[in-house]
């Protein structure tokens, strides 16, 4: 394992402390229990948005705390769900009386811990579960699809509605709409190494890729030989379009997300391939996002998310945002 690390036990604490110092104009970092919150108190009457999950996906979620997005984020250990006391403390810290909306990715551990946090918090609260990964089929017999990169889009879009006086119910409704309108699929070229484990999560050959990989390096649909970008992107888009079935005149946001170890040069190439393929199918790309937003430590790979946008979604996507990892309009 080659990592910038002093000792495994302090890994997360040291990283969070550095994050707090680097962005001290926007956020505060609280340790024990750990949560990231906005530097400025949530204004009275604004619904508070709290997300969280295992660490290792930076900038998600701490990097999305700030004006126009989250009010707080609860980081768990690397790839492990955060604990209920973190959610309770974060909610008590940020709730300004309008209630708390928890944004939770669909994993058993996250669901259970957020559920307990919500039970322990005495104020008004509700939750939305994101499950945009089309790589694993949704069925009544399984936990369902995984929550992956579209969680970023949910946090941005619902964050804007909350900033514009949306009620808890309205925020939940919009979040569920964005989640339903989004589909994501990823591919990995290399594995990633959880610091506590000290070795790669899975083995993969030099000429292989994991098609439909999850954001913790969980296996996806199949292991394949590496192919040209256009073929990979085409296969990913086919799976997403099968699932989302966008109309020809519909507007879409195209989000190419890096897994952490793939350079932006390649991500833009993926974006170009995706644009061409979508154009050839008569699907309109209106908005874009390219970069490392929902990562898997140092994994090489990328995911593509397509979000079908109506006017409400577009308006809140364009609205000003000022967080450590996403900033425009202000």
């Amino acid at each position, binding site marked *: 394992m080659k990592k910038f690390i002093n000792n495994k036990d302090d890994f997360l604490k040291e990283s969070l402390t550095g994050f707090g110092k680097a962005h001290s104009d926007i956020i505060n970092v609280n340790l024990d*229990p750990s949560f990231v919150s906005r530097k400025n108190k949530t204004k009275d009457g604004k619904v508070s948005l709290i997300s969280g999950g*295992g660490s290792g996906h930076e900038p998600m979620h701490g990097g999305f705390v700030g004006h126009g997005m989250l009010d707080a984020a609860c980081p*768990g*250990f*690397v*790839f*492990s*769900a*955060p*604990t*209920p*006391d*973190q959610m309770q403390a974060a909610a008590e810290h940020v709730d300004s009386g309008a209630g708390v909306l928890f944004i939770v990715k669909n*994993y*058993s*551990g996250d669901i*259970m*811990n957020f*559920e*307990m946090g919500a039970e322990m918090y005495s104020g008004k609260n509700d939750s939305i579960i994101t499950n945009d990964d089309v*790589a*694993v*089929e949704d069925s009544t*017999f*399984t*936990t369902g699809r*995984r929550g992956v990169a579209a969680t970023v889009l949910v946090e941005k879009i619902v964050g804007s509605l909350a900033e514009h006086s949306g009620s808890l119910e309205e925020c939940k409704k919009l979040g569920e709409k964005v989640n339903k309108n989004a589909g994501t699929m990823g591919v990995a070229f290399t594995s990633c190494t*959880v610091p*506590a*484990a000290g070795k790669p*999560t*899975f083995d993969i050959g030099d000429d292989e890729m994991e098609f439909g990989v*999850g954001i*913790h*390096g*969980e*296996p*996806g649909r199949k292991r394949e030989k590496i192919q040209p970008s256009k073929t990979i992107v085409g296969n990913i888009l086919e799976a997403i379009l099968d699932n989302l079935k966008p109309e020809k005149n519909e507007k879409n946001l195209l989000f190419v997300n890096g897994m952490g170890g793939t350079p932006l040069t390649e991500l833009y190439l993926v974006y170009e391939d995706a644009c061409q393929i979508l154009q050839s199918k008569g699907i309109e790309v209106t908005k874009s996002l390219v970069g490392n937003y929902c990562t898997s430590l140092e994994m090489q790979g990328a995911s593509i998310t397509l979000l079908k946008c109506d006017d409400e979604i577009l308006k809140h996507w364009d609205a000003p945002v000022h967080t450590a990892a996403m900033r425009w309009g202000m």
Partner: protein
Amino acid sequence: MSVSFLISQAKSVQKVIDENSAEIEILDQKIGDGDHIFNIQRGLKLVVELEDAIKDLPLAKALNMIAMKVLSGIGGSSGALFGTFFMTMAKSSDLDKDVDFNKACEMIISGIKAMKERGKADVGEKTMMDVLLPVSEKLNELKYESEFKPGLNEVIKIAEERMLSTKDMLATKGRASFLGERAKGHIDPGARSSQLIIDTICKSVINN
């Protein structure tokens, strides 16, 4: 069941889990995301470290402190599930009186029931519940028996059989559920760690 019993069991379980950590880690890397063993080890370490803080406390208070430590210190599914287990045990009535075998069984049964509700998983879904639920049923039969040692040998056997039975199951809960057919052929890491815990505690009760 007493506070000193809990502490000594935590220490024995910690030893056994550490001895089997490589196996559990590999199982989790095959069908999960590799964090289960670290979560369990971290949790056991935290509980063992509680010794000085809890050794003179009443049982209910000690169980509650263990619950909060497990809940806030582990994370992942294991933290929520084992935290729920201890929290439920701490809420049992009459803990200020002597907790005999019958009472201890009832506490464990109610703890496992609460875990089932929290995780919304049942037998056959390739999780730790495949081991815990049958064990709970057996304890329910055993609790009125005056001679419980033969029964505990059966509990050990049931836990092992059920742990092995997860090998050929499809997972429908937890991270492994995303794998479909690819999860087959591997024992569930949560089932294995639960079986080791049960095995250790039962053997220690039988031998004392």
